[in-house]
């Protein structure tokens, strides 16, 4: 499952796109791969930055593999919820390119602060994809080591993690870890709904004032559960950055190449000490908010169909085929790998044991508490009083 970072060293590679297209289209949307899979060589952003990627064929194929795998594992998780094996699941369907593009743009030393839907970023960070399923199955509340993988625990309170990311980024700067090519950067994930939260706006203020090495990565998937974007904002979200004093840019979040290019650029600016920026990855939540939601109550089928035509995986496949970077054997092999990993994930989820009840008393405090010791002892005594208790 693990693969290399396709963009760790892109200079001097071959593989400039073979189909070239002028930098046209929506001036407010950075795009390097059209919905039909046509490659745009480079795009100049509003501030004059030229966005391009320069991947090898193998790296292009690697990104495609990532997209397919995270979608398949996500679909398996949804199926597991439908069968009662997970309490709930927050699907990333439709947002694969935003997550893989930004996730692969991170360098090893960079730190990420996710919401609860960043399964694709989690995958890119090399974390076992079963981890979030433990959370949604209810056997734990996370499980991975945030510092080992440089990927914090999921945060369910909307927007709260943007402040954590900002503080962490302040610490990076205080540690003197910015200003060089191997400096550290931080990325904060959040959604369009979160932009209404006080915490997110406070994070914008803080990051601006302290010039923190931070990328605010907003996946605008158009809905906060049922509420459309118009209920959160009067202006395009990326333009909010101007009011806080740092750059904002909108990228086609269904375009893995553009998302990679824009995110890598913003992260590198941050690590070099040039401060924060906001990326609005313009995408669409193809599924429900979570498995408890019914999107047919608040959005029409034609809208979903229109976004279907912008699918992030279909356009990447069309590109790979057109440029003869991958053949049918490759696509079949990726599908087979995805199928195999999904089965493996399912088997491991079904085998996940429930935690021992008494473990609920663990890790409340690093230094413990006599009150809890007393309650734990009482709980054990009560538990053991039942005949046949194996506890």
């Amino acid at each position, binding site marked *: 499952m693990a693969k290399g970072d396709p963009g760790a060293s892109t200079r001097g590679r071959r593989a400039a796109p073979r189909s070239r297209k002028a930098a046209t289209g929506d001036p407010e949307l950075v795009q390097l791969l059209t919905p039909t899979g046509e490659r745009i060589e480079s795009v100049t952003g509003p501030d004059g930055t030229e966005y391009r990627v320069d991947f090898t064929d193998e790296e292009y194929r690697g990104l495609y593999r990532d997209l397919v795998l995270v979608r398949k594992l996500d679909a398996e998780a949804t199926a597991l919820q439908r069968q009662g094996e997970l309490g709930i699941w927050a699907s990333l369907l439709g947002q694969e390119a935003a997550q893989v593009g930004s996730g692969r743009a991170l360098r090893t030393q960079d730190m990420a602060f996710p919401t609860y839907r960043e399964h694709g970023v989690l995958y890119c960070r090399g974390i076992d994809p079963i981890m979030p399923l433990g959370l949604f199955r209810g056997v734990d509340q996370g499980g991975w080591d945030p*510092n080992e993988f440089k990927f914090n625990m999921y945060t369910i309170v909307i927007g709260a993690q943007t402040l*954590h990311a900002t503080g962490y980024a302040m610490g990076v700067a205080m540690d003197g870890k910015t200003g060089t090519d191997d400096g550290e950067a931080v990325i904060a994930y959040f959604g369009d709904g979160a932009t209404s939260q006080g915490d997110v706006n406070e994070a914008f203020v803080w990051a601006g004032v302290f010039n923190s090495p931070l990328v605010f990565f907003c996946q605008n998937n158009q809905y906060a559960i049922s509420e459309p974007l118009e209920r959160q904002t009067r202006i395009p979200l990326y333009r909010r950055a101007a009011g806080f004093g740092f750059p904002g840019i909108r990228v086609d979040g269904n375009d893995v190449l553009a998302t990679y290019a824009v995110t890598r650029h913003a992260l590198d600016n941050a690590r070099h000490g040039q401060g924060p920026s906001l990326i609005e990855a313009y995408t669409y939540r193809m599924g429900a908010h979570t498995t408890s939601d019914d999107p047919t109550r608040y959005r029409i089928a034609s809208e979903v169909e229109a976004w279907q035509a912008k699918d992030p995986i279909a356009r990447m496949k069309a590109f790979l085929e057109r440029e003869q970077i991958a053949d049918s054997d490759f696509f079949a092999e990726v599908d087979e790998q995805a199928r195999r990993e999904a089965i493996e994930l399912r088997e491991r989820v079904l085998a996940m044991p429930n935690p021992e009840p008494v473990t609920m008393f663990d890790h*409340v405090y690093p230094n413990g508490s006599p009150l809890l010791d007393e309650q734990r002892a009482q709980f054990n005594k009560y538990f053991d009083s039942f005949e046949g208790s194996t506890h």
Partner: protein
Amino acid sequence: MATETLTLGKALNAGLRKALENDPKVVIMGEDVGKLGGVFRITDGLQKDFGDQRVIDTPLAESGIIGTAVGLAIRGYRPVCEIQFDGFVYPAYDQIVSQVAKMHYRSRGKLNIPMVIRIPFGGGIGAVEHHSESPEAYFAHTAGLKVVSCANPQDAYVMIQQAIASDDPIVFLEPKRRYWEKGQVDLDAPLSGAYPLHSARVARAGTDVTLLAYGPMVRTCLDAATAAAEDGRNLEVIDLRTLSPLDLGVVYESVRRTGRAVVVHEAPSNVGLGAEIAARITEECFYSLESPVLRVAGFDTPYPAARVEEEYLPDLDRVLDAVDRTFGW
């Protein structure tokens, strides 16, 4: 031994200075804590001596203070956050309750948030609204937080250092009306061997009734005990010091001797600390009690306008009235 007479506020300042000296990861952050030294001058002079990366004037947003401090803690820092007044902590309540308190638990021990949240609390200074509140029950009710309060300069000096050195997230309640009270402080007292942070202590030994208090009400209870002695009643005063977890061993021992207990706090009585303490004394000391455990507390009103706060706050007479009532059963 460098023993000096210091106000409680100066003792806190000295304790913070020592913590900054002892650990380069300690950072102080809050509104006006830099050049101004805080509105109560508790951080006076610290930014000048330790720089603006160790003593950080933050934007004016409490959730931002606590939320960014969480990130700094994950990065390996030990943030000491100042909330300017008790009534301004509520914008940060979500970050404190949902993030600070739960991070260690949710991560199954992989993350520590060694944060101290300093809050000047309580009334009695003639302040305008939102500047005199006692929010301790909100925090003591939250698993994952510890809550302490100091009542004298020596404890202020030692307890703030102990709280900063602890890996637990701690809400540190400072009795703002006592900031200017003076006492002897041993500035060379080593932390190792100091009286443990999460331990109650007998502040005045007695035999007839046990008075239980913390923070600003310890002084009130000591004064009440002095007055009662003139009437021939010998009151024991216990400074609880730690509100979560409560340390009630010394309390049970006392109540078993006196048979009578009165809990005193400024916070409203309804569902306050006094209710929990009374329930637990009743469970542990039932056969020793000569009367129910009584509470002397703020009333269940919003904190009133300053010109009537003297009538709202427990004072010597209300404490003595309750002591009298314990003899009425």
